[in-house]
Structure formats: structure tokens, C-alpha cells
């Protein structure tokens, strides 16, 4: 996972404090995921909620998500120059790839040729999963180039 890959590439002197930061980031990722799943089921099971309440519940995972991103940013700041370049390449690949995947799905859906399970294209969870998978692939490819 991202926290493991970051911990492996740290100078030994900073590794212990970095490990604590990585664990904190992982904890916030866990909170974000749990919050997202809980609110997803709550919103789906309560279609009669007032719109404002439904929107509020749907956006609730953003709060722990922002905390996770803050911890992640802190981890990136402490990477050395080569590791930062690897992450830049990986994130660029992930973003470009996600744009391509979502665009293709949306165009196919618009012409009635889409995937039945995703009649509205990739929803927000699908976008994040796609981005994360592509980031993992991008990181592996970028790391292999420098080995």
C-alpha cells in the first residue's frame, strides 16, 4: 500500500517518526472508508430523507478524507527527490488514466453501449478505486524504471 511504499524509501534516521505518520494516515483512511460505507447504506436505505440531509450524509466521508489527504501530503513532503519524481509520475498516470476510463464509460453510456452495472458511468467510489488502482500500477512501473 502507499504507506508501506513510502516507509520503505525513507532514510533510516527518520523512519520511526515516519512510521507513526504512516500509521496515522492509514487510520484516517480506515475511518474514511468506514464512514463512506456507512453513509452509502444509510442514504440508499432512506430515499425519503430531506435533500439537505441526504447531501450532508453523502458528503460526510469528505471530512475524514481531508484528514487522510493532509497526512498523505505530509508523507510526500518528507520523500526524497527521486521518490517525489516517482510519485509525480504515478499520480500523473493515475489522473490521466482515470480521465480516459471515465470518459470512455460516459461516452459508451451516452450511446447505449455502456456497462449494465454502471448505467451512470463510474460513480464517486468507482472513480477513487480506479484512480487508486492506476496509481498502484504507475508507482510500480516508475519504481521499476529506477531499479
Amino acid at each position: 500500500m502507499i504507506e508501506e511504499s513510502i516507509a520503505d524509501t525513507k532514510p533510516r534516521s527518520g523512519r520511526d517518526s515516519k512510521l507513526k505518520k504512516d500509521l496515522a494516515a492509514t487510520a484516517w483512511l480506515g475511518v474514511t472508508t468506514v464512514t463512506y460505507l456507512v453513509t452509502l447504506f444509510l442514504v440508499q436505505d432512506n430515499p425519503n430523507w430531506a435533500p439537505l440531509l441526504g447531501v450532508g450524509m453523502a458528503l460526510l466521508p469528505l471530512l475524514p478524507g481531508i484528514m487522510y489527504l493532509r497526512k498523505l501530503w505530509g508523507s510526500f513532503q518528507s520523500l526524497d527527490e527521486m521518490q517525489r519524481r516517482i510519485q509525480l509520475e504515478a499520480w500523473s498516470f493515475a489522473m490521466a488514466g482515470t480521465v480516459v476510463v471515465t470518459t470512455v464509460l460516459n461516452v459508451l453510456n451516452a450511446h447505449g453501449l455502456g456497462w449494465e452495472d454502471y448505467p451512470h458511468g463510474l460513480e464517486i467510489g468507482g472513480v477513487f478505486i480506479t484512480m487508486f488502482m492506476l496509481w498502484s500500477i504507475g508507482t510500480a512501473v516508475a519504481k521499476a524504471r529506477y531499479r
Partner: protein
Amino acid sequence: MEYRNRSRQSPLPVKNKLRELRAARSWSQSNLAEQLSVSRQTINAIETGKYDPSLPLAFKLARLFALPIEEIFSDVD
């Protein structure tokens, strides 16, 4: 001066003597990485020519080995 279309040329390859310098001092890659506050993977990538360090890192290396940058890094042309 002859104009060169850099966008069509591959980057100038850079050689370095990092491995020899490190071995002469019996330092491991991890030792050297710790002294420079970089990861061991970065040291390995520099030694194998897969990664060219930034100027600040190159200066750090030069100061550490007490050598001019040109004696550690050279272009192959």
C-alpha cells in the same frame, strides 16, 4: 553556435564514480543514504545511472567526498 533541437534528442547520459568512491570508504549504500538524507533506493539508482541527482544533491555529494562535482560526475559525449 549550432542549433540543436533538444526535443528530438535523448538526454545527455551522465556517468558517475559514486560506487567506487563509496567502496573506497567501505560505506554501504544505506550508510551513504543516511548521510545525505535520501533513501537507499536513490543511491542505488544514481550508482546504476538510472537517476541523475539534482544540483543540490550533487553538491552534497561533492562536499561529502571532498571532491569537485566534475570528479564525481561526467557526461559521456
